[in-house]
């Protein structure tokens, strides 16, 4: 009843291949994008922006990157934290050495540097597969973190060993640094995520995405039909690291403000991987849903007892939170092993028929 598709004919190939072929879908998505750009900067308070929305956007970008690598190309990687660190530290070095370059440009260049590093560490994937590859990418994670810890050049020889985001402006408005406001940083993060999510969506619908999926499903067969495994896998690592690098730069510049290497340690890699798996491997929407789950559920669990009015000691609260979080993960996996994105897909399919059962 909502999804009256009757009468929606496609007359060109282009319109048939659109991301959102149904008009209702398109309208809703456009409205959603408008709302997401307008409502939070105007209506949300600083806690909501600073502690919830901005990290959500940043993690979504990183999860999208990892989803391209693990979900679409099938290369399990645990080096996300390391690549994010590369993005963050290169952005820091670039902007402190060349303050005149626009911060957007700085982020893009640091993404490219992260992509280069990702290409390098992706070379073992040509020989190693599956969980072995995951553990091998841990080598890149630990090595990169060690490198940033050890070489003081990366932190501009600061005795504190931390990198701090300086004040930088886009079109005259401060978007990074201690004097920037949360709404501006939110819009910057949102802008990047919107653009790159669109790019990712189109990547995976096109030739490159299909070659990735071919490698993921049957790599020997793919090679036989002419998909070059070297180029495809390395491209996956490169593009994924590009995304993770920008997410890392955003992590420091738009969210934390200053960071030491501990902010990019192995826990971040695992966290992003969890987001991808919970959200749904092989789905761009899944990256967002997974990021939302992992960012929001702990906050919900911390706030819920207050809301109900149950005064528990904080330690017990945190322990229960951990238990519930773990239980929720298992619950969601049992209910829908293919992730939240699949749940959403099923919902949409049901909605298309509602109120009819079939």
């Amino acid at each position, binding site marked *: 009843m909502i999804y009256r598709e009757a009468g929606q004919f496609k007359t060109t190939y282009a319109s048939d291949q659109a991301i959102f072929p149904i008009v209702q879908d398109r309208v809703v998505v456009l409205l959603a994008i408008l709302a997401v750009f307008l409502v939070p900067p105007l209506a949300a308070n600083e806690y909501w922006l600073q502690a919830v929305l901005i990290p959500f956007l940043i993690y979504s970008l990183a999860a999208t990157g990892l989803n391209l690598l693990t979900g679409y190309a099938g290369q399990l990687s645990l080096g996300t934290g390391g690549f994010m660190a590369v993005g963050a530290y290169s952005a820091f070095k670039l902007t402190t050495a060349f303050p005149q370059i626009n911060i957007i440009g700085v982020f893009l260049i640091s993404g490219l540097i992260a992509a280069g590093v990702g290409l390098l560490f992706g070379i073992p994937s040509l020989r190693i597969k599956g969980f072995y590859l995951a553990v091998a990418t841990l080598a890149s994670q630990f090595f990169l973190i060690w490198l940033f810890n050890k070489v003081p050049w990366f932190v501009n020889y600061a005795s504190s060993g931390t990198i701090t985001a300086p004040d930088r402006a886009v079109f005259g408005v401060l978007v990074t640094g201690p004097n920037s406001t949360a709404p501006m940083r939110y819009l910057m993060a949102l802008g990047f995520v919107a653009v790159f999510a669109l790019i990712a969506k189109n990547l995976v619908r096109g030739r490159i995405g299909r070659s990735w999926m071919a490698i993921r499903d049957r790599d020997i067969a793919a090679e036989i039909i002419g998909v070059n495994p070297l180029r495809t896998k390395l491209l996956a690592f490169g593009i994924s690291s590009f995304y993770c690098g920008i997410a890392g730069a955003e992590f420091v510049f738009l969210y934390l403000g*200053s960071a030491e290497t501990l902010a990019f340690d192995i826990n971040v890699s695992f966290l992003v991987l969890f987001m991808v798996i919970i959200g749904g491997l092989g789905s761009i929407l899944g990256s967002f849903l997974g990021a939302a789950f992992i960012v929001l559920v702990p906050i919900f669990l911390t706030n819920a007892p207050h809301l109900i009015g149950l005064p528990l000691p904080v*330690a017990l609260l945190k322990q229960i939170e951990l238990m519930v979080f773990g239980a929720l993960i298992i619950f969601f996996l049992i209910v829908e092993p293919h992730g939240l994105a699949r749940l959403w897909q099923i919902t949409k399919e049901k909605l298309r028929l509602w109120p009819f059962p079939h």
Partner: protein
Amino acid sequence: MKRNVLWIFLLAGAIIAAPLAPVALAQDKGSIYIPLLVYRTGPYAPSGIPNANGFNDYFNLINERDGGINGVKIVFEECEMQYDTKQGVECYERLKGKAVVVNPFSTGITYQLIPKAPVDKIVMHSMGYGMTAAADGRWFAWVFNFPMTYWSQASAFIKYVGAQEGGMDKLKGKKIVHVYHNSPYGREANPTLEVLARQLGFELTLLAVDHPGQEQKSTWLQIRRINPDWIYLSGWGVMNQVAVKEAAAIGYKMDHLVGNWWSGSESDVVAAGDGAKGFRSMTFHAAGPGFKVHQEIVKYLYDKGKGAQKKEAIGEVYHNRGMINAMLNTEAIRTAMAKYGNKPLTGEQVRWGFENLNLTEQRLEQIGMKGMMQPLRVTCENHESNGKAAVQQWDGKKWTLVSDWIEPMREVVRPNLEVAAVEEAKKLGYTMRDCSKE
């Protein structure tokens, strides 16, 4: 399947709605609000639990015995952050509404919050940790790290070693090893130690231990080979326990192993058992439950069942430290009230209180902490204050002071500190205050 989907939607709705209601405690009109970032769970909980209890006990004592600070009650609320930067930032953002002072703990969280302090008008008290350079109050007006910073502590350590060896000139040719956690926290002491090594002629070896420090065999094999005269330990969490155990295992003379003040507590010597006897550490306060303030908390809190922990745990190193931290916050607020009146103060007013804190010997006696701490005085330029350090030793049952109060080598530390402060402040775009005008 359908029922499951319904549950999932309900859950999703609740999750999305949750952050809409960040809750801080109900505020009654005449009170001062202090959020407490605690780490009662997670990898550093053994240190976090007594520390948080110390805060609870002291603030409760002030409320119970005195009815608050000059009649203004202290309302405090704990937020569990597991020593994790992300959670610490989330706690801060949720609870900062009416806060006047925050003790961030965790160097990571401190660095996050330092830029926010002047914007949110909340005082940051990073007692004996955090950004050393913030001790230069001319650049960092809102950040305080008294009674001492890491660099001063390192110089106090060298002074102690010199005293033990029979004179600073006897240090020439001696071998000192610094075993440190491979992080900015662990490396803090290195610049000072290197400067002093050049000045005084001792041989310094720096050995980094990778986080978390569960496995340190290679470090201690190297130490066995070097056979140093003294070892300085800058560890945290499990690294401390393993270090002490490995030192005992290689048969090192434990009274020449000196931890910094985050590497010397009851939980750090648990694993090594008897082998840890003789282990020393730096400190800026005494341990043990033998001071008047402890009798007070027993009388007003524990005997009425309002104590924060088991009675046996009173006087533990971190419990005392939590109480002292709370005491310093309280006295700073009291100092501010002397100028601004006995009412709930603003962040600005509390900041003035911190900057003009003058903790005298008499005041310490009135508080019941005579001998537990040294008097100190904070000034506009010196947010580190003129505090002193001491060395304590574990005898198998408790920690006791084994040295006099040591004055750090300020003439070595301060110039470097000022240089670092300029650097850090430049990153944040600060301008220097003129203390003579304030």
